[in-house]
């Protein structure tokens, strides 16, 4: 094991993870999820976020259909979708996605179709952005493991 390479990768990983918190992509709940991962379950976080992204895709599609025709919007269905999305984003620590859901719900409550469409677009953008960021993070993790190192547990305040 090349300890210099491992140390470098670990530092890179730490900096990247911290930046994700600082830029508001992630919140404390993501830290909580990382605590649940160990050598026996090294893919736990990746599996949970993967389920989350699948959920996002499915919910966004169905809300898009509900908002499709201006004369027959099913706001109840949209509201239900937003509620689910807000819940799961909160459970994984996807802070930006969750925050869009808060605005989204407000648009739903007043039956503002245009507002809902804007929020839908935003939530789509945010989840895809987070997906890319986390893919990069997990890649760094893999590189550390392949170089023979261990993933640092980082305390984020």
């Amino acid at each position: 094991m090349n300890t210099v390479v491992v140390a470098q990768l670990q530092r890179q990983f730490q900096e990247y993870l911290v930046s994700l918190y600082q830029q508001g992509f992630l919140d404390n709940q993501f830290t909580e999820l990382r605590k649940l991962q160990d050598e026996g379950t090294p893919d736990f976080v990746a599996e949970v976020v993967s389920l989350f992204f699948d959920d996002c895709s499915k919910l966004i599609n169905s809300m898009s259909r509900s908002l499709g025709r201006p004369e027959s919007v099913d706001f109840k269905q949209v509201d239900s979708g937003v509620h689910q999305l807000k819940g799961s984003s909160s459970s994984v620590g996807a802070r930006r996605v969750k925050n869009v859901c808060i605005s989204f719900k407000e648009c739903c409550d007043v039956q503002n179709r245009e507002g809902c469409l804007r929020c839908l677009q935003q939530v789509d953008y945010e989840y895809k952005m987070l997906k890319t960021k986390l893919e990069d993070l997990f890649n760094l993790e893999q590189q550390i493991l392949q170089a023979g190192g261990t993933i640092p547990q980082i305390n984020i305040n």
Partner: protein
Amino acid sequence: MALGDLSSSSTSELHVLAVDDSIVDRKVIERLLRISACKVTTVESGTRALQYLGLDGDKGSSGLKDLKVNLIVTDYSMPGLTGYELLKKIKESSAFREIPVVIMSSENIQPRIEQCMTEGAEDFLLKPVKLADVKRLKELIMRGGEAEQEKTSNLIISSPKRILQNNFFFNIFFIITIIVIFIA
């Protein structure tokens, strides 16, 4: 693994039935419970929970359960049977009313919390659920009879998860209002 006659009293491991319509939340709660040394069965709805327990009136399904359930943790807002309705059905059943039921919700709504506690819920957890919540919960359940006393005092002591201190301030405000009206 044939564990048909494993009774919970002979082992310190709790068997928890977790009910949530969100696949993400099911995965998280399952891991939280497993890490806390519990056996876990997850189902996606109140109806499935009743089926699992054999409470749905369908005789054929009672064979599904091979381990006694020691704790039920359920989400509040679910399509079909809500967590509250599931709680009621369990408390109405002579076979299962002794099983502690814990409600989880992403919304901190005081009347909702009170409604669940009145109906016999053991505890109310605010989502997202953390490891510390599950550890505290497990301790509460494992302590069993001792927990009866503790539980009442835990409800009254303010905790970050239950804003019962709001009741306290509300009461003070109410009393002051009455006094003011009296004096006026």
